[in-house]
């Protein structure tokens, strides 16, 4: 049987997940380098290009239904309070305001892993949901919110992570202090005793906000007892499950659809309260409801990259051998349970037999963290590669040589080899692209007002994907193919790449292939679009289905032409007799003969190989100029060299890398959520005050892919690329700034303010 149910292991956003799922057991010949291929790996234009450039792509935010009403959410203005009294009567008197739901008139629905409710009268952060109003127009819904009267019992709060750590957590949120995460390896004191030198420092990173261009939104409609949800989500199945569980209705009575969405970056990886609120309102009103968050709410209530306060110490020998490392960090998860740990890279990036890790999650009265493009790794690599740099300069060693000296050949946490690791190749390619030899051998030794520096940092991430992930193929009249899967394309190019895989195997032109994703009512299960796992999970399932479809076409041709199957070959999208090539059938011919409108085939992702870990690797190099009069930093160039297995599509790959690097640059230099500690209010709640880069902030970026394919990881050889792109950027820029000015800025973002302060020591 070519399908089997097996136990498999994947690592998703830092969590090790054991799955039991159906996998394909077929072994397919590996493709070799992209030069051998016709469609995969080529710079194919996206198949949804027309829709996007013509304005005809309908995003969730654009969904308009007949008799649709609008819903807006009232959120806590206070960082910590209990609702004493709430009165919605004034709001309901206004013509056009249709309904208001609160904890008083709705059933209890558990939220945040049963730690809270959909409407919890205990408000734990500025932005916590209080009520939701539906009205004929968005303006009226907005007015309804202003007419809701709420009296609060104000409670003590903390928005500063350090202060919260020192406070009684139960007084801040009512939750117990999260358990301290610890990890030990080897003989720590022995490692220290073997060392000649050590360096220690503390690094801090800010809370930053995803801010995708499309806000979080849903449009929901009931049809009898069946609910259809259009949601701007990275995880249709998670939304389906959360909505069905919340409303206590059958799973197959909820259909979640997401065709086009305006970005997510992790903020749309879980179901939002807003979707459930809209479903409740729609049920009460008997009308479709559109609910959306505005930019202010986006900056308050749909997650963030948590902050980190990381103290690292490295001990080593004068020859560069690292003998021991310790890591102690804390970070704010926000007001509800979530993780803020950033220690993964520390445990695996560089070879060190003796390490000690302590990581503490802290509750504060501010918006809850969520996965944000390479959660933990972006923070972790900045700190790790800063301290590694410090150690290199301390012992007078080239920072790359130090990294090579401590190159980890195996995964040190699981003690197994990698399916592939080309980090050495990445170091060498990146160093060449940036002119590594031009760096200041002594940091800050350059002359003049504008000082130039070069720095680098390394990248590690998972992204090998895994089962379960399924795909279906439907071949129809005329030889048209539809690929169907329950994953979703969040803009990264999944539609296009899955079509390329089918086109490669079945040799059907791209124009004849349609891809349907993002519909729980249609697609078989496939993973959420996070963790850089989509292509590495789903593309192999499409290959599996395509290869099986090919066999099916051969058997159909055998029956039609009355030739044994082994005398038939598949050639360029046609099925022909080996002995008499004039005898051949096109796919369209076969479908015509079969007098069926469609041929169907399922495919599945194979199991991950036993005894290996899959990681992607890379290194980024930054060349910066620092104006020592104004503190302004200009990034001249980023060179990014990565091992990501097989590049599936040159165009979408380049965009992913450029986009990730610019987000990383922005994290290094610009972005930061600012909260007024005396009031608990976030002060930069819009794009006016929360700055992300424009087209004029772009440095020269060179992308170098050092890998051809990872033949062990899956049948297409791909590892994910979305997250690797952003991981080392901030670390590389920070090290370049240090190389330029000779003073290390240990807290992100590296603003002109901090640079001038570091140089001239104002305070």
């Amino acid at each position, binding site marked *: 049987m070519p399908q089997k149910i097996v136990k498999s292991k994947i690592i998703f956003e830092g969590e090790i997940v054991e799955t039991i799922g159906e996998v394909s057991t077929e072994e397919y010949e590996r493709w070799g380098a992209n030069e051998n291929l016709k469609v995969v790996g080529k710079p194919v234009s996206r198949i949804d290009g027309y829709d*996007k*450039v013509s304005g005809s792509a309908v995003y969730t935010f654009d969904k308009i239904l007949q008799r649709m009403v609008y819903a807006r959410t009232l959120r806590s203005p206070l960082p910590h309070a209990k609702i004493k009294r709430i009165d919605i009567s004034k709001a309901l008197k206004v013509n056009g305001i249709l309904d208001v739901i609160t904890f008083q008139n709705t059933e209890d629905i558990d939220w945040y892993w049963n730690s809270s409710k959909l409407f919890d009268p205990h408000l734990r952060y500025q932005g916590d949901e209080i009520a939701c109003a539906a009205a004929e127009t968005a303006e009226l819904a907005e007015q309804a919110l202003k007419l809701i009267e709420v009296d609060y019992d104000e409670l003590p709060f903390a928005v500063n992570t350090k202060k919260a750590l020192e406070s009684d957590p139960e007084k801040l949120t009512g939750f117990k202090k999260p358990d301290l995460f610890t990890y030990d390896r080897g003989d720590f004191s022995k490692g220290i005793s073997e060392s000649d030198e050590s360096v220690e420092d503390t690094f801090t990173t800010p809370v930053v906000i995803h801010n995708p261009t499309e806000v979080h939104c849903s449009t929901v409609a009931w049809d009898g007892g069946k609910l259809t949800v259009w949601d701007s989500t990275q995880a249709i199945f998670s939304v389906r499950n959360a909505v069905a569980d919340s409303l206590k209705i059958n799973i197959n009575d909820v259909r979640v659809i997401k065709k086009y969405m305006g970005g997510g970056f992790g903020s749309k990886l879980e179901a939002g309260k807003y979707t459930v609120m809209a479903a409740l309102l729609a049920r009460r009103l008997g009308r479709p409801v559109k609910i959306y968050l505005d930019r202010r709410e986006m900056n308050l209530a749909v997650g963030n990259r948590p902050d980190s306060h990381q103290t690292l110490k490295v001990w080593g020998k004068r020859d560069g051998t690292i003998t021991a490392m310790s890591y102690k960090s804390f970070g704010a998860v926000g007001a509800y349970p979530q993780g803020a740990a950033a220690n993964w890279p520390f445990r695996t990036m560089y070879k060190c037999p003796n390490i000690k890790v302590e990581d503490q999650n802290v509750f504060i009265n501010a918006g809850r963290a969520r996965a944000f493009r390479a959660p933990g790794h972006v923070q972790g690599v900045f700190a790790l590669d800063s301290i590694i740099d410090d150690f290199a300069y301390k012992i007078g060693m080239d920072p790359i040589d130090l990294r090579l000296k401590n190159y980890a050949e195996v995964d040190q946490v699981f003690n197994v080899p990698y399916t592939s690791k080309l980090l050495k190749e990445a170091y060498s390619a990146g160093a060449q692209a940036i002119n590594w030899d031009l760096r200041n051998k002594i940091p800050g030794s350059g002359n003049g007002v504008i000082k130039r520096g070069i720095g680098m940092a390394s990248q590690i991430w998972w992204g090998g994907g895994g089962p379960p992930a399924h795909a279906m193929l439907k071949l129809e009249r005329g030889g048209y193919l539809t690929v169907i899967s329950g994953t979703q394309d969040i803009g990264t190019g999944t539609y296009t790449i899955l079509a390329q895989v089918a086109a490669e195997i079945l040799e059907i032109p791209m124009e004849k292939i349609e891809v349907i994703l993002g519909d729980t009512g249609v697609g078989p299960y496939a993973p959420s679009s996070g963790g850089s796992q989509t292509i590495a999970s789903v593309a192999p399932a499409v290959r599996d289905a395509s290869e099986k479809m090919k066999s099916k076409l051969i058997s159909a041709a055998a029956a039609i032409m009355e030739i044994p199957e082994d005398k038939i070959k598949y050639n360029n999208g046609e099925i022909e007799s080996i002995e008499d090539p004039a005898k051949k059938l096109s796919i369209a011919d076969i479908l015509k003969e079969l007098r069926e409108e469609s041929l169907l085939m399922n495919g599945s992702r194979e199991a991950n190989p036993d005894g290996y870990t899959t990681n992607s690797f890379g290194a980024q190099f930054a060349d910066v100029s620092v104006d020592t009069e104004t503190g302004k930093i200009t990034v001249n160039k980023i060179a990014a060299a990565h091992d990501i297995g097989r590049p599936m599509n040159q165009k979408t790959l380049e965009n992913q890398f450029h*986009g990730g690097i610019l987000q990383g640059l922005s994290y290094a230099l*610009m972005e930061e959520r600012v909260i007024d500690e005396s009031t608990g209010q976030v002060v930069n709640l819009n*794009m006016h005050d929360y*700055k992300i880069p424009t*087209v004029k902030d772009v440095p020269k970026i060179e992308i170098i892919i050092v890998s051809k394919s990872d033949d062990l990881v899956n049948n297409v050889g791909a590892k994910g690329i979305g997250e690797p792109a952003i991981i080392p950027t901030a670390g590389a820029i920070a090290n370049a700034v240090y190389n330029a000015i000779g003073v290390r800025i240990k807290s992100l973002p590296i603003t002109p303010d901090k640079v001038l302060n570091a140089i001239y020591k104002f305070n």
Partner: protein
Amino acid sequence: MKQPVKFILNDKIVETIEHPAKALLDVIRERYFLTGTKEGCREGDCGACTVLVGDLVDDEIQYKSVNSCLTPIAAVDGKHIVTIEGFNLKDKLTSLQFEFVEQGASQCGFCTPGFIVSLTGWLLQNTNFTVDEALTSIDGNICRCTGYASIIRVVENIVAEIQKANLGEDKISNLIELGFLPQYFTEIPKLLKGLTTFGSDQPYIGGTIVSGGTDLLVQRWDTIVDEEVYVKKSNGISENIFIEEASIVIKGETTISDLMKSEIIKEHIPKLSKWFSLFGSEPIRNKATITGNIVNASPIADSTNLLLVLDAELKLKKEKSTRSLPLSEFFISYKKVDLLPGEHVDAIHFEIPEIGTFIGWEKISKRKYLDIASINSSCCIKHANNKINMIRISAGGVAPIPLLLKKTSQFLEGKEITTSITDEVFGMIDSEITPISDARGSAQYKAELLKRLVLAHLKNCFPHFSVEELV
């Protein structure tokens, strides 16, 4: 309260009845179901809602990009509005759309229509086609996915194509020929000329005056539709900016773009158009008025601090009565101005700067483009033989109001410029500013930067003046 509005939406004349301050974005999306125009931030900071507004000026059609989320519908009465759907050709992509697909320049695609509208607008309104200018036209379009590299490749390719083609006089026909525009664009001037609108040229009878709306529709988008408003029509540049008795007069509704394009301003303050490219973004500059910038009373208003050193006076109008007030006396305390209820700024005027007068403008912000200043400063100097005869220095972001550094200026007046005076200048600056720490920088940082900006003014005016040793 609602009033009829008539305009050309893409290739069709449309009529609707709306509250005059209703956002054009909502009308486009909800009334006409053209959802290619996106809403990303509703404050003019993302560009996803960019559309073009075409208007006849001296019989010639001129287009500019605006943020439809901040454009009151009454302001487009009698104009041509082009959304992304209005560029679509039959059976094929425009040359620009094609390049976007070819270069893979859209990822999630939510921002893509805005980029295409801005860039097509740039092709329509410019004569000098350089990559840098094209990039300026999209400085108000935020993309969170692509990192812009693929978009920059699109820009480079189309600029090369346009440069080669030489658009010449009949630009619209040539753009149609090159596949950048649909055919119907040639018909628009005629259609516009024949368009009899309902709401045009109504006299002011009361209510909130909305001119640019770039701040108002951010602050009060949901309640403004319940207010009595009067949307002021914008005039041509020559009617907005003129010379009267040796003074330059700028009418209240003048936009930042008008100012940058005005021949009068180009002659007397030639660098203004370069400086003000750092003001907001292209679509914001196309809508935002200079009065709005002043009356908003932000301590870091980019135009206010320039007008302060030009010793500008405001002409304030209330019904039939008018009064004049020096701009420097207009600001009372944080966001509080000397403006009576019902009074508005009718015009701003200042003496034409004498030939040889130095005028400088500096701005430091977190992000170089599309950002509010952390601090800014302007300076006006009359000088001869290294001696300062008259100087006015302004500073934004270091006090609750836009500030004239009177003491520092007084100290410098009559002085010869040498490095030995810098300590004293710094002391003077410190004595008259009160910066606070906020999201845009610490108080100390702002004070340090201001000193550097004042030195930069002096250095620019007196090139021999060296400040290297200060570092």
